[in-house]
């Protein structure tokens, strides 16, 4: 399995896979699955960007985009990422590291490519027709667009929460159990993990009296936290949130933000927002995206108070947006 992945190595060196011997297969970080044989455009060897492939010394942690050694290890590494819709580049040459146990905010004016960027991270871009993805995205050292990578495993490791709460028309319990049922977990495991995930999402106390009510009867804020619980149930390492509070009222927003602080103890959290106060409140690091280009990424405080780029400064001071 590892060998198959190794064959797919595009143009970046990567460390061997850290698979704990005790880990069950589905908890392992290895995304490969021998039966998977899909060919993705990304496996085409030549990147479309005119820049030369990065030098072999350019690994996670030593890149100019990562900050000094104090940072936790990177879980997702994006290198020379381009996304094309026909002839139009939606994302141009993005290089970015996302670290474990950190909240990274992605900010930028609407239409700048924030949603597209996080959708490349769990291959949801494949669901939108007409998008071409080029470059390299690694999850714990594995090229996620590699031939041997099973997108199902990837999407469970890299969970996603959408702008509008999208609960399934099932009970609260069955919503959280959704991914576990896909994995054919036993009844006991389902039971424990559903309760555990609801607790982590701060919903258990509110809903424990009737876990079998329809999820559609919950408030918007509860639905959004249920979506988070649903993603947590399948044991992710990374959570992608696309403007998760844009349809919520202030008090529901507050609850979701509180939850993010809890979650970052265990997960890498990547949140898209076009609310700069939100980024300032919740994020350790913030990336500013403008017209498909990554203008600047830095510790949140620094990015807001002392940006390196003129463009960042005008955006965070509200001069456009």
């Amino acid at each position, binding site marked *: 399995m590892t060998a198959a992945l190794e064959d797919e190595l595009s143009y970046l060196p990567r460390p061997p896979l850290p698979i704990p011997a005790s880990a069950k297969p589905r908890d392992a970080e290895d995304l490969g699955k021998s039966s998977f044989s899909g060919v993705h455009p990304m496996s085409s060897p030549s990147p479309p960007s005119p820049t030369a492939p990065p030098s072999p010394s350019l690994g996670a942690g030593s890149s100019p985009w990562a900050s000094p050694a104090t940072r936790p290890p990177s879980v997702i590494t994006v290198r020379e990422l381009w996304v094309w819709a026909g002839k139009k580049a939606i994302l141009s040459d993005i290089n970015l590291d996302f670290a474990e146990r950190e909240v990274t905010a992605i900010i930028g004016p609407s239409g700048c490519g924030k949603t597209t960027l996080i959708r490349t991270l*769990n291959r*949801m871009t494949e*669901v939108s027709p007409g998008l071409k993805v080029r470059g390299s995205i690694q999850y714990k050292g594995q090229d996620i667009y590699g031939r041997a990578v099973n*997108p*199902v*495993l990837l*999407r*469970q490791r890299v*969970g*996603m929460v*959408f702008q*509008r709460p*999208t609960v*399934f*028309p*099932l009970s609260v319990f069955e919503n959280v159990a*959704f*991914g576990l*049922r*896909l994995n054919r977990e036993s009844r006991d495991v389902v039971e424990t993990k559903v309760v555990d995930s609801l607790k982590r999402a701060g919903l258990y106390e509110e809903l424990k009296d009737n876990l079998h009510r*329809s999820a*559609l*009867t919950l408030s918007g804020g509860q639905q959004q936290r249920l*979506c988070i619980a*649903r*993603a947590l149930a*399948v044991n992710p390492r990374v959570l992608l949130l696309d403007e998760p509070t844009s349809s919520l009222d202030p008090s529901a927003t507050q609850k979701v933000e509180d939850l993010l602080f809890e979650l970052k103890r265990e997960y890498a959290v990547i949140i898209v927002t076009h609310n700069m106060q939100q980024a300032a409140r919740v994020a350790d690091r913030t990336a500013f995206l403008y017209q498909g280009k990554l203008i600047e990424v830095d510790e949140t405080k620094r990015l807001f108070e002392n940006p390196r780029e003129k463009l960042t400064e005008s955006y965070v001071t509200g001069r456009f947006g």
Partner: protein
Amino acid sequence: MAVANPTLAFGEDLSYARGRLLVRLGVDRVIGWVLLLAFVIVLFPLVDMLGWIAERALPTFTWATLADNQIGTGGGLHSMILGTLLILGLSTGIATAIGVLAGLYTAEFAPRRVAEVGRLGGYLLAGVPAIVLGYFGFYLLVLYTGWNYNTLAGGITLGIFMVPFIFRTTDLAFTNVPHDQKEAALAMGSSRWQYLYRVAFPIAMPTMLSGVFLAMALGLGETAPLLLTAGWSNTVPTNLLEPTGYLTGCIWNFYDFPSTFGHYQTLAFQAAFLLIVIVVILNVSVQVIAEHYRRKLRGLFA
């Protein structure tokens, strides 16, 4: 009634000018009456017809009407009821299998162009007069096969008649599933089939079920395609390759017998009564299902 108030300054009086108010009240009232009249005109034939049929069907309606075969100028509707159920069962099975698969294909799998052509085909098939389908069934399933008039041919032909309705509602049911749901399911790691089975199907189910029931109600009322394919018999067929009777055929055969053979006409009225009862049951079921799921899925399509 509002009257201009002289204590108010110019432009502060909010009431209608005097004559305008009377006109407005009058117009409202007249429109109300016209709408009520239209409503009564719609309902009157229905109520009148039901009374007219019940009056002739019910006085002699006994257990024997359901349990006896029609013999000579006597007997009941037994073989025709069974024939109707048999043909309806066959046609519903065939039409549901084909219609649901075809609808799923156009909604979820077909390239956009192919889906559009498929939908157009469905509309065209729905527009083909039933008797033309009957003629086609007669040629293919009665003459060409050499089976003569038979129950199976009736079921297949009626199935073809019903397919476009089930196809269309299934297509609609699946295309109406909110796209969010698909994204969410795939983002949870579902395959396309898991998404269809676990998320889309339950959401599409009530619409599909309504489509099947409505197609059944329409098929139940068809006479021409059956006369040309299932033929006629006044005994219960012992296998599917024999002809059979059916309720609509009973009306067609017996409606114009002179009243000296009064019992024939009564049978026709009793068949009509049963048809209406079954159609009402089907339609009420559709309403009950729709209401149940409307409550259950409230908020999903917001």
